[in-house]
């Protein structure tokens, strides 16, 4: 049974049209929505859950869940925020389950953070000398930043990823996380400060 076809030309169609076609059972429209958003959803989930296998499965689960219930979508919010809301909720539920199964030692985490700070400081010092290994070190720096995001509290990590990586507006974040606009501002500020504390030696 063939229900999907790749018609990338249709990706240029706006979400509203694609969703309407999906609601009428058009498999091509479903395919277009997946191709259009799969990288962004995967990237966001990966930055929150920090595991590639889990991110791939959660991305798949997100699209299956959304396409299964697309007939219930009434357009009160945009499809984009609805899709990300499902993705974030699935990811956070998964993270909570995983945390329950394998709790991390706080002592070990603190030790790792200290080592990470020292390492970042040395990377920054070297990178400013503009030596030939700078590109490699910059890559390592980016990886350290990603690791630091993973060390943040769940709510800080999520809002930081949505704003600074997915580049969502405050209003979109409020819809995805189902929180007030004022909460978005204060939580985002605290999240940035928390990350800055982790990267203190690098960014000051």
């Amino acid at each position, binding site marked *: 049974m063939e229900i999907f076809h790749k018609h990338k030309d249709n990706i240029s169609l706006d979400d509203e049209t694609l969703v309407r076609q999906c609601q009428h059972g058009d498999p091509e429209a479903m395919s277009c929505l997946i191709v259009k958003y799969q990288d962004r959803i995967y990237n966001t989930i990966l930055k929150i859950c920090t595991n590639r296998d889990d991110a791939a499965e959660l991305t798949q689960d997100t699209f299956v869940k959304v396409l299964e219930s697309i007939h219930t979508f009434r357009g009160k919010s945009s499809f984009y925020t609805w899709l990300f809301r499902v993705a974030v909720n699935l990811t956070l539920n998964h993270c909570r389950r995983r945390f329950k199964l394998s709790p991390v030692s706080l002592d070990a985490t603190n030790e790792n953070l200290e080592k990470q700070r020292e390492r970042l400081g040395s990377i920054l010092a070297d990178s400013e000398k503009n030596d030939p290994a700078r590109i490699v070190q910059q890559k390592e720096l980016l990886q350290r930043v990603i690791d630091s995001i993973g060390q943040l509290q769940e709510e800080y990590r999520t809002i930081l990823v949505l704003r600074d990586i997915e580049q969502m507006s405050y209003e979109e974040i409020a819809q995805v996380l189902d929180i007030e606009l004022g909460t978005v501002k204060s939580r*985002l500020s605290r999240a940035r400060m928390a990350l800055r504390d982790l990267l203190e030696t690098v960014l000051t």
Partner: protein
Amino acid sequence: MNEEHKIDADELISLYLDGQATQRQKTELKRLMVHDAALLDRFKALKRQTAVLNALPVETAPAGLLDEIRSEMERKMILNNFADNTKISAATTHLFARRLMASAAMVLLPLGLLALVVFQIVKRPSGGLVDYEPIGGFAAQGDPSAGTDTASVGLVDELPFNGVLVLKTDEYSSVNTTVKQAIDKQGLMAQAFPERTVNVTRFYITAPPKKVAGLMDSLAAVRSQCRGVALQVPGPEDGAMTEIVDPQAKQIAALLFEDSPQLYRRLATRYAEANQKGDSVFAKNEGDPELDETGYPAPSIPTLAGNYDVQDRTVQLTIQVERITEE
């Protein structure tokens, strides 16, 4: 600087960096930074941090994600259709049963009345019934074996095979996908019910042995992605399991099609022992009456229950994919 002031200033920085600060907030922030060197440092640090975050590489979704979603959607559609059909069938059956009962009532009610009239006619004035000799006297003979002989030998729908194929891998997602695709390829999606946790996925399959054998062939390639493959089947003793390490396709096929429970258990035990030692069970062994010249086990003696084509019967297989987590 008090704590409240600090929190407000940090929020101002955040708003400013996002282009969300009003003109008044911008002016206020600049004024604060002129008088507070620490705040100015935080501003610079956050500005650089935002630039680094914006520069993070965008990870692309794994290839084949679209196909995986398609397979999952198709499987769910099949299951939903099956459920809908079942509902229709149940409703139809219920309606039919009601009509049948109504018809039976219409027939039985006059018969019951007629029986009552006859009963009144043949009833003795004393209250007893007329004595009749039973025809042939079967009931009077009281055969002790009556009732037990009538127990029919029911057809057995399942072959003895009931195994768990364990795949241990550190490429959990990829192996899961391959298994799903293999099941799909064999047209077994409707008979395969997956159960997934973080580290273990189980696919419960009930299907004819030929289909399951085809599935095993499709899974040959997945072995290279696994650190351990084993087949667990019921052992010779009740409750015990026999584990066949690294089972060969021929071994699995032989077990799948085996009709006799006794020979099935013996074969499983033999395979387990041979694989443990690294021997080839399918090497030519003239002295072995249970293996024919092709290496497959000789057909067992047909039983009453199994005296028909095994292809019409089913086997149960669970494919269990286990994630190997790094220490």
